[in-house]
C-alpha cells in the first residue's frame, strides 16, 4: 500500500506506547497457545508478531486477526519475555484504522463509534454509541437486538439520553493539544 524502508513497520509499531518490546520476542508461541480467541484469527498472535518483523504490513493490517483480541491478557500473563502481545495487537488495530484498512469484521466500526461517543459526551453513552454503530454496520441486526434493548430499558439499565458532563470540554481541549503536538 505504501513504500517503506526495510523494517519501518516494526519501528512504527515499537514506537507506540506499550509495544516497545516487540523486537525481543523469541517466537515461542505461548501467546498463541494461551489466546482466548486464536481459533478465529487468520494469523494467531505469534505469527502476527513474526509478520510485523518481516515487514508484511498489508497482510497484517488487512487481516481480521488483531480485531479478535478480547484483551484477556492471558498472552501477556504467560509471555516469558514480557512482550505484552495484547498491547501489540491494540497498536496494530490503531495503525489499521489510521491507514484506512477495511478488515472483514465490524469491530473497527464499533471502536470508532465508542470513541466518537467519548469525544462528544465526555463519557460513553451506551445507547447512543450502539445506535450509531448498528446504523453504520447492519441496521437489520439492530432489530434482532431489540428484545435485549427493551429488557435493559425496563430494568433501568439503558438511559436514552447522555448525561451532561462539564469535563467534556476539558477532554476536547486535552485532545486538541495532543493532536497539535503531532502524536499519532
Amino acid at each position, binding site marked *: 500500500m505504501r513504500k517503506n524502508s526495510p523494517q519501518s513497520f516494526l519501528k512504527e509499531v515499537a514506537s507506540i506506547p506499550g509495544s*516497545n518490546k516487540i523486537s525481543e520476542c523469541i517466537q515461542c508461541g505461548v501467546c498463541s497457545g494461551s489466546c482466548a480467541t486464536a481459533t478465529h484469527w487468520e494469523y494467531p498472535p505469534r505469527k502476527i508478531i513474526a509478520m510485523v518483523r518481516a515487514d508484511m504490513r498489508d497482510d497484517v493490517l488487512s487481516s481480521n486477526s488483531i480485531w*479478535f483480541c478480547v*484483551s484477556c491478557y*492471558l498472552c501477556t500473563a504467560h509471555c516469558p519475555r514480557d512482550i505484552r502481545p495484547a498491547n501489540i495487537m491494540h497498536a496494530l488495530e490503531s495503525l489499521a484504522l489510521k491507514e484506512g484498512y477495511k478488515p472483514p469484521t465490524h469491530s473497527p466500526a464499533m471502536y*470508532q463509534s465508542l470513541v466518537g461517543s467519548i469525544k462528544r459526551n465526555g*463519557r460513553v453513552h451506551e445507547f447512543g454509541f450502539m445506535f450509531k454503530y448498528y446504523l453504520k454496520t447492519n441496521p437489520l441486526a439492530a432489530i434482532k437486538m431489540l428484545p435485549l434493548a427493551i429488557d435493559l430499558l425496563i430494568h433501568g*439499565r439503558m438511559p436514552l439520553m447522555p448525561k451532561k458532563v462539564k*469535563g467534556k470540554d476539558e477532554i476536547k481541549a486535552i485532545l486538541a493539544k*495532543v493532536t497539535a*503536538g503531532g502524536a499519532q
Partner: protein
Amino acid sequence: MKYYAYYPGCSMEATAVPVELSIQAIAKPLDMDLSEIEDWTCCGSSPYGSVNKVEAVTIASRILALAEKTGLDLVTACSSCYIVLSEARSLIKENAELAATVRDALATVGLEYKGTVHVRHLVEVLFNDIGVEAIAAKVVKPLTGLKVACYYGCQQVRPRYGFDDPEMPQWLDLIAASLGAEPVPFPLKARCCGSSLIISEEDVALQLINKLLTNASENGAQCIASTTCPLCHTNLDAYQSIVKRRFKANYNLPVLAITQLIGVALGLDYRALGLHKNTVSPKDVLAPYKSKLQEVKT
C-alpha cells in the same frame, strides 16, 4: 472509616446500574467512604487504546490527575477502567516522551499529574483493606448452603496490577465464603466473557459465555458471584437468555455481583442492592435468605 476517591466509569450509569447500586449500598456498612471523583470523564476504555494510544493515555491521565488532587487512593469497580488507568499510570512512568505529551495536554486545562496516585480495584480493597473477617462480622443473614461459582473475568487479575493469582485467583471465593456461601470449583473463573466482541462479533462472545456458564453449572453452582466489572456482569446476566437459546442450554444462573451478594448477607434491602434490575432474576435462589427487611419483589 476508610476514604477513597471513587471512579465509577461510564457503564455504572447504564448497563451496570444494579452493580453500582449495590456498591453504594454496602459502602457505609463496611466503613468505606467512596466519594465520587468530581466531574469525571471516560477513562478511554480498551477500544480507545486501539484507536489512538497516545490520546487514550492522555484522557485517562485526566482521571489520574483529578484523583491525585484528593490525596486518596483511586478505586474503581470496573475491571476495564482498572487496567486502563493502571496501564496509563505505568506507561507515563516509563515513557518520557509520553509523559511530556500528557503534561502539556493537562496543562491546557490547569491540571497536573505527578505520578503518585494509586489505582485500585474495589474487590482488592474489599479483600485487603476491609478484610474477610470484618465482612464476616457484619453478616446477619449467612448464605449457608448457597453454592456459588466465583467469576473474576480477565482484567481484574491480568496483567497483574494487583496481587491475586492471575489464573486461579481466590479473593472472591474467600469473600463469598466469609458470607457463609459455598464456592464451588470453577476452572474457568478467570477466562474471558467475550468483552465488547459481544457487540461486533456476537457469535464468538456467545460461545465464550456459554463455556463459562456451562462450566459453572456443571460444577453445581446455583448462581454466579461475579466481579463488579460491568461488562462481565452484563455479558453473563443480560445475554444469558440469548446464549441459552443459541446453545439450547438449560442452566439458569442468576449473576450477582459480589457486592450484591455481600449486601444480601448484610441483610440490606433487595431494591437498594439493585437485585430487581438483574435480568436473570435471583429471586428463587435467594428466597431462603430473605430477612424481614427485604420483603420487596425482585
